[in-house]
């Protein structure tokens, strides 16, 4: 096996076996996703969707959308900050839960809890979001509960605000973080933990030097699975955000459902994708530098 840290030009091409393992997945994705996206990429360079009898010309205008429509910069920032908040909160809430699941619960109970955490996932996302509106609205369940517990306090309405969107998003994506973190934590060799404990490491040190670093892959995986889709989310912002719920996702959706402007919608999506890919390419490079011997 070639050692890590070799310069890229000396990396061997994939072996036959490796290629065989990769082929089904990537072939499938090529036909179903990459080729259609290539068609969309082509569209994004046109002036209008190439249907009907009016000709479409080539243009780069759509990729200048952020220049031509400066308000989009603030909308993009809204999406990014939603992504950061959601990912951060999911990590803060989910990682300890995964740890608790792996270390404080055993046997049958653990299995049952594991499944219970996934179960809400199996209800329809839209109906779940709508249930949140019932909890968060003025006069809704949360409002009534607080008033019952603390009469005189009028919390007012959380619905139709930025925090409401974050709550909805965190709720929708939390299981991802719990599961990926759990997968990582569960595969940490218990011997390492015991060794650290026997050397006298106290809990905070244990966390910082053993548990957290070794479960980093899980955390990162979860971060990817959460941050990336949240960038393009439009259901939670729309339903929970009221007039505040304007994100790249809603703007892109408008291009498809109000104007027939596929080129602009596609260009905005690919711009976002480029941003995400750049971020992760940088992250991957940084990780490789860190783990190089």
């Amino acid at each position: 096996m070639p050692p890590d840290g070799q310069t890229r030009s000396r990396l061997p091409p994939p072996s036959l076996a490796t290629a065989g393992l990769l082929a089904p997945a990537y072939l499938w994705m090529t036909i179903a996703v990459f080729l259609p996206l290539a068609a969309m990429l082509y569209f994004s360079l046109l002036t209008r969707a190439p249907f009907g009898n009016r000709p479409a010309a080539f243009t780069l205008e759509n990729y200048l959308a952020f220049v031509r429509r400066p308000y989009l910069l603030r909308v993009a920032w809204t999406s990014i900050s939603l992504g950061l908040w959601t990912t951060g909160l999911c990590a803060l809430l989910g990682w300890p839960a995964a740890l608790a699941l792996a270390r404080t619960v055993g046997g049958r109970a653990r299995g049952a809890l594991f499944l219970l955490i996934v179960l809400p996932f199996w209800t329809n996302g839209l109906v779940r979001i709508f249930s949140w509106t019932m909890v968060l609205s003025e006069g809704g369940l949360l409002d009534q509960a607080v008033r019952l517990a603390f009469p005189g306090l009028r919390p007012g309405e959380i619905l139709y605000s930025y925090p409401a969107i974050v709550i909805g998003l965190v709720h929708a994506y939390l299981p991802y973080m719990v599961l990926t973190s759990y997968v990582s934590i569960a595969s940490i060799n218990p011997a390492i933990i015991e060794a650290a404990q026997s050397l006298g490491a106290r809990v905070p040190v244990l966390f910082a030097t053993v548990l957290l670093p070794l479960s980093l892959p899980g955390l990162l995986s979860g971060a990817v699975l959460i941050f990336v889709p949240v960038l393009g989310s439009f259901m939670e912002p729309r339903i929970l955000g009221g007039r505040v719920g304007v994100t790249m996702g809603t703007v892109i959706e408008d291009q498809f459902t109000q104007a027939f402007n596929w080129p602009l919608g596609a260009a905005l999506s690919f711009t976002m994708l480029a941003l995400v890919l750049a971020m992760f390419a940088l992250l991957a490079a940084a990780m490789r530098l860190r783990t190089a011997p």
Partner: protein
Amino acid sequence: MTGTVSRRGFNLCLGSGLTSALAAGYSRRAHAAETITVLNWQGYGTDEPWALKLFAEQTGITVRHDYFNSEPEMQTKLRTNPGAYDVVLINSARTRSIAEEGLIDPIALDAVPNAKDLVPSLRDHANLTQGATHFGVSWLWGMNSLAVRQGKVIGADSFAVLSDPAWRNRAALFDDAVTEIGVGALLTGQDINAPKDLNAIAASLKAMKPNVKLVWSSESEFDKAFAAGAFDVAIYWSGASARAQTRYHLPIEFIVPKEGAIGWLDTLCIPAAAKHKAAGLTFINFLIGPQFYLQWAESAGAAASANGAAMAQLPADNAIRTIHKPEYLDKLQFMSMLPDDRRQAFVDLWSEVKAFYAT
């Protein structure tokens, strides 16, 4: 489904003129066992189960449905599925451009007997005709205008109520660029389809910011939020207001303010590549007739029918009738065909206004 005549019996009848009569009967039954596919909004009349049952009993034609959630989506489905649909619902604002693309057929109104009862100004509206040729059959009309909470909002007679400080954080707007630009155009005295001064419209819409609580995109969302008391003034559809009153007894009042209101007209059309055009026309005839409309209006609450005779048969206190007064037809500016770049300009402007509301 085939005739019960045995082969020998059939041969015996060959010589006699009986066969021609039998053959005619046989072919009518075979023709009648057709299935047509209709493309429409979900829950917008054409898929009412009782109606489909009635229609099947009368004509032997079964109706299947495919749905769309936005007008561009309807266009996409038409373009990418030639031959899949036999009847399609098209907002008259888009009828002509779709006809120009060659996606729908001209319709000879004499093949649609109930068309003679359509209100002439709607039947021959410029949006769906080219000279004397009709590209769609006018089916329903309605208005997008002010809706207010009865008993709480008194004396509202202008769209300006949407920026009135009395209703701070108590307004809901419709998430549709064409409608909201239209409201802005009406407020600034312009043509909703060809406004000259978009900046004035932008200013009038942005002035509503302190009042806007939410931007709704479906009737269901509106009704639930209204029932929960989230807002008191809004832009709403006339038909949906009627439904909210009759079905859910919501305290909602629909107002056509002094600036006028935005009108829309939905048409039923035959796709050019349709495989069952005659059956499609039969269904259209059924839909615009009073038998279907009256029962639909009573049971589900609908928009106003373009069939004047049918409307006149509604009970005088029916919410649809009280809201859709015929004299409004002259006060309305109907949504009409928009060139692509103008539609894009509207969407961009509305997008910018929404982003402004969000800050």
